[in-house]
């Protein structure tokens, strides 16, 4: 239990989150190796099913990196994913998963440090929370 390293699946919008993730790398910030980055064309591509599937497949936490609100390349993609997250929160509550396991983070392309901070914070939070009961 001492060496529990939570697995995080990060969905990254191609227009902002993925570039921010690359930037975090360029800045040389060390991040947990249990981070899986999935590149999607827009945060709106992420279905409620994908979020739950990630948790089902053994992720301890799911992070969604979308563009800032009112700054989405596809106008409403980040709002769509936010709305779907509300639905997923409801399901998670019913099946007894903690709300902290899913989070949305709005970043811009130059927010490498913010990306890293969000991942590290989630990592610490999940460490405290313990492994996902789904596993």
């Amino acid at each position, binding site marked *: 239990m001492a060496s529990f390293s939570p697995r995080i699946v990060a969905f990254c919008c191609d227009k902002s989150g993925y570039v921010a993730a690359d930037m975090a*790398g360029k800045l040389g910030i060390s991040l947990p190796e249990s981070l899986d980055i999935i590149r999607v064309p827009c945060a709106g*591509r992420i279905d409620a099913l994908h979020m739950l599937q990630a948790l089902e497949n053994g992720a301890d936490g799911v992070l969604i990196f979308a563009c800032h609100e009112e700054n989405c390349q596809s*106008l*409403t*993609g980040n709002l769509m994913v936010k709305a779907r997250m509300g639905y997923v929160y409801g399901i998670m509550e019913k099946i007894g998963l903690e709300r902290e396991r899913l989070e949305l983070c709005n970043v811009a392309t130059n927010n490498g440090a913010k990306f890293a901070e969000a991942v590290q914070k989630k990592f610490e939070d999940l460490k405290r929370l313990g492994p996902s009961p789904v596993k």
Partner: protein
Amino acid sequence: MRSADDCRIAVFVDRCGGTLSHLIDEEMIQYVSRLPQVVSCDQDENLSSPEGFEMLVSRLTKGKADRAVIVGASPKAYEESFRHLGVATGLNPYMFLVANVREQVAWIIQDDKRAREKAKAIIAKKVKEASLLSPIGREKIGVPKEALVIGGGIVGIRAALALADANIGVTLLTRAGDIGGKAIQLTHFYDRPDDVSSWFMKQIERAKKHPKIDVKTSVELKGFEGYLGDYRVTIRGPLGKREVVKGSAVLLTSGYDVVSNTEGIFGHRCFISPSQMEAMLGDGGKSLMDEKGKPIKTVTFVLDLVNETIKIDSANAVKNALLLKKDHDRMVYVVCRDIKVSLDGMERQYRKAREMGVIFIKYDDPPRFSLVNGGVNVQVKEVSTRVMGQEYTVSILSDLVVMSEKFVPSKDNEMLATILDVPLPQEGYLMDDNPQFTQVRANRRGIFLAGGCRYPQTLDEALVEAEAAASGVTQLLSQGVYEYDLAVAEIDPAKCAACLTCPRVCPHSAIVVEQYAERNIYITAGYEGDFTWRAARVLPTQCYGCGICVSSCPTKAISLKHLTDAEISLQMEG
């Protein structure tokens, strides 16, 4: 689609100029070569260099691989050259994948051993994902060299002329009885000595006589349909006759409206709007006198009371103040919260105005107006002297007070947004697709916006925008064909329930619901079969491939060709 077993993957390892040397060694290459379906594994010191690129091309051309995985830096670094690579090797440009082991492994995981484990996992996953790829085609449609310009103001005329000069036929539609719009009232540009009205008249004459421009006045917009290359606008002419005009692209220049008399002493003759001032200056200063025939001696411009942050007011005030001072030698005051000089050449104009004796006074509290001796007393608490511990109130006895007009979005914007299906934010101005990258493009491909319909702007800015939008249209239409990748969403009509969710969520209005007879066959008039249903269809020219509709579809009838659900599921496996 071929089965996953008989695909052949070529892996290319980019050592990124040595930055990945600690990760990639013989053992790693061995590991990659042993992965299932991998037929070759080559490495290069720098894949982006001409030599590395040559190696890649020769391997892909001679080898038997039908897809490739590149191990190296971020996919963003390779994507542009992928397209060319596809041309050089005959391999489909979408049969490539990139395992990002530089930014997302080597640089964020300090421990070498763990970094190698992670890199192996990522490469294995990408190789597996590569077997799911399928080629994506490219299509082209013909785009006739015709454009529609909606709005007959100066922006519309300028854009129409620019398009017509680029050999594109233009239909100019305007609701008014004649082209010209509001800018016709202006007499001077702020930054050049030309007389605007004569220049503008020449433009109007040219537009009317130009063989490539068809001007339709007094028309009403009634309907709109189509896509890039085939937009059709239904209009109602002056005699109530309906007509359909066609164009490959549409340029919206609806402009903005002004409301005068919103501040100051209402209805008093001493309070005038900038356009009245403009008219007074237009006739050579003959009307620069009050109703008794006495000349006007002092003019005060009051800024920032009506509009908060709009630089048109500042530009107009400085321009007219200079004219009043230079040509007519009047006493001019400009009372403002902040003078905004963020326009080309404005700084110089402002300095010139100060040098010539125009007095600028800044305020925090709104100035007060009172009527004295047939003039107006403007009382301003001056803020620049406040640092000395005191505050002075300045009284300016003025014969005329020029109060800015309030800029409001055009009433037409709402109608245009509804008919053309472009977004209209709460402020009421039409919205561009992206304020940073695609300023004059609306969310639908082939629809452009220019001028005051986006936000109130000065004539110079609007003219620049008109040309920008015109060059955007020219760029789309000049080839006569529009080529696009089919990396778009696709709807299976057999699964579609025609619930209208996707047309509603599509940010680019790229989905229509059509009547189908058989799969993907548009029903023609007179078809009498009973096997018909309604289903949605993605217009591939309009789709940007964002995938919002894919995840919104309740029946999972939509798939995104370049990122299928299977690919996402594979990537999130632990």
